[in-house]
């Protein structure tokens, strides 16, 4: 049978009125609560990181397209989204020049070198973050607790000041001292971490918005969060803690749902999320870093074409007899 497969779903097709720019600005809107929460929690330095990251990403895109002689498409908002997403995964007090380098790397190496929007293999924001983590690991792991958020630690507040809850859990601090970060604090995001990853409340608000308008596919976050929670339970760990700490929520709803770097088939998307969850858990428990969302999603990005190939749905009326 000789047919070129241009579509991956059975007919009939409906033409949607969505445009790239429309989707991008909806993502920005959905990220606003998380960005606002970051600025409220961590103050002016966080705002500086967010602004410099977005500006650098947009400028890098324009510059790169100009040098390469391509049409300049910063108006579609994709560079701004990359800049904003990157900023939300950075420590609040990262020096401005590191932020700018990371945003420029995300756009130039993570996206434009592959041919621009739609051609990149890896999530640009996460590529930028991985670059920063490899280049300046100390600055990228310097954390700060929001003012007045350490009351739960009692007398050992000094010992936890520079660490995220995941690092503390890894060290066995909670078991050793018999203390726990209250769930309400984890949920509100009043903890140390990246600017936009700490507040579960703000992220879920944005996620509900994107799900309601069907900008993102529910299968990916379901697979991601589900796999992580199930593995945590199986390993005898606290699943709620695993879901609320670190970058899982921003990763599951905003990073792993990127159109370009994830499979386009429904089944592929579910397995993509599943893989992200499994890898995140494995890196958290056995890896060298306390958090594994970045590498989990980047690794699954690399596997996306394979998942896509394995999960192409049957064409309407097709009988798979002679395959």
């Amino acid at each position, binding site marked *: 049978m000789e047919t070129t497969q241009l579509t991956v779903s059975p007919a009939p097709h409906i033409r949607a009125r969505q445009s790239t720019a429309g989707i991008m600005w909806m993502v920005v809107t959905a990220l606003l609560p998380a960005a606002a929460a970051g600025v409220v929690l961590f103050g002016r330095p966080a705002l500086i990181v967010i602004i410099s990251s977005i500006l650098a990403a947009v400028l890098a895109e324009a510059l790169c397209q100009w040098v390469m002689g391509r049409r300049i498409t910063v108006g579609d908002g994709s560079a701004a989204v990359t800049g904003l997403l990157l900023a939300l995964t950075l420590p609040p007090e990262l020096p401005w020049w590191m932020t700018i380098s990371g945003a420029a790397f995300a756009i130039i190496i993570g996206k434009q070198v592959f041919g621009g929007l739609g051609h990149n293999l890896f999530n640009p924001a996460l590529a930028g973050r991985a670059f920063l983590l490899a280049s*300046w690991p100390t600055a990228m792991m310097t954390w700060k607790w929001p003012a007045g958020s350490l009351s739960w630690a009692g007398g050992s507040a000094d010992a936890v000041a520079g660490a995220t809850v995941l690092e503390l859990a890894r060290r066995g601090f909670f078991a050793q001292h018999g203390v726990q970060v209250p769930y309400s604090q984890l949920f509100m995001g009043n903890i140390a971490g990246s600017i936009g990853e700490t507040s579960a409340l703000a992220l879920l608000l944005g996620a509900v918005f994107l799900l309601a308008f069907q900008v993102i596919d529910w299968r990916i976050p379901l697979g991601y969060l589900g796999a992580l929670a199930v593995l945590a339970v199986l390993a005898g760990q606290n699943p709620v803690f695993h879901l609320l700490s670190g970058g899982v929520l921003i990763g599951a709803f905003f990073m792993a749902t990127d159109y370009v770097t994830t499979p386009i088939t429904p089944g592929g998307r579910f397995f993509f999320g599943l893989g992200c969850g499994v890898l995140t858990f494995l890196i958290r428990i056995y890896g060298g870093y306390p958090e594994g969302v970045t590498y989990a999603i980047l690794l699954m990005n690399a596997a996306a074409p394979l998942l896509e190939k394995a999960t192409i749905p049957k064409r309407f009326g097709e009988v798979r007899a002679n395959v």
Partner: protein
Amino acid sequence: MKDRWRVFANGIFGENPIFRLVLGMCPTLATSTAVANALGMGLAATFVLVCSNVIISLLRNIIPDEVRIPCYIVVVATFVTIVDKVMAASAPGLHQVLGIFIPLIVVNCIILGRAEAFASKNSVSRSFMDGLGMGLGFTLGLLLLSIIREPLGEGTFLVAEDFGFEGLRVIAEDKQVLMFILPPGAFITLGLVLAGINKLVAKLSTVWAQKGGE
């Protein structure tokens, strides 16, 4: 004589092993972290390349076709072992840094490739010039990468402890872009330089084509 120089220049520009043939990637990525390492690796490979090219060219009418590959390997391995021993005796620090990559010159595809493609079919003097050109082309390629990677990744330039060079500090400590001396930095730097050189070659060839047309 002009022909000899053409053979020599071919190794450096036209068929540069790293940037045009994209051969010998393993040592290229691994040893271009510092200028001193790149120079050490490049010169070691050049020595082996020149010597093996000359010997194989000399023996080209004696070596039977059926056993030529084992013969080439023995010749190459001999010179590699010589380099390994001499380097261990005279520059132990560099020898330790380059480590496994010196013995691995034996299986460097540039060397066996030149033996098979060039030295076995050409005169001794042409083979000598080919080995020299290819070796220097390899060395220059390594140097180009290391000149980018060392200052950015280590924050220092031209450090060579064996020879008492302290090097220059170009980026303040703890501010250097560590990624450039890590493996991803090797791939990214090589990719960007390759892209730049391809662009340059494309531009030059159109210019030359226009000139030729006049």
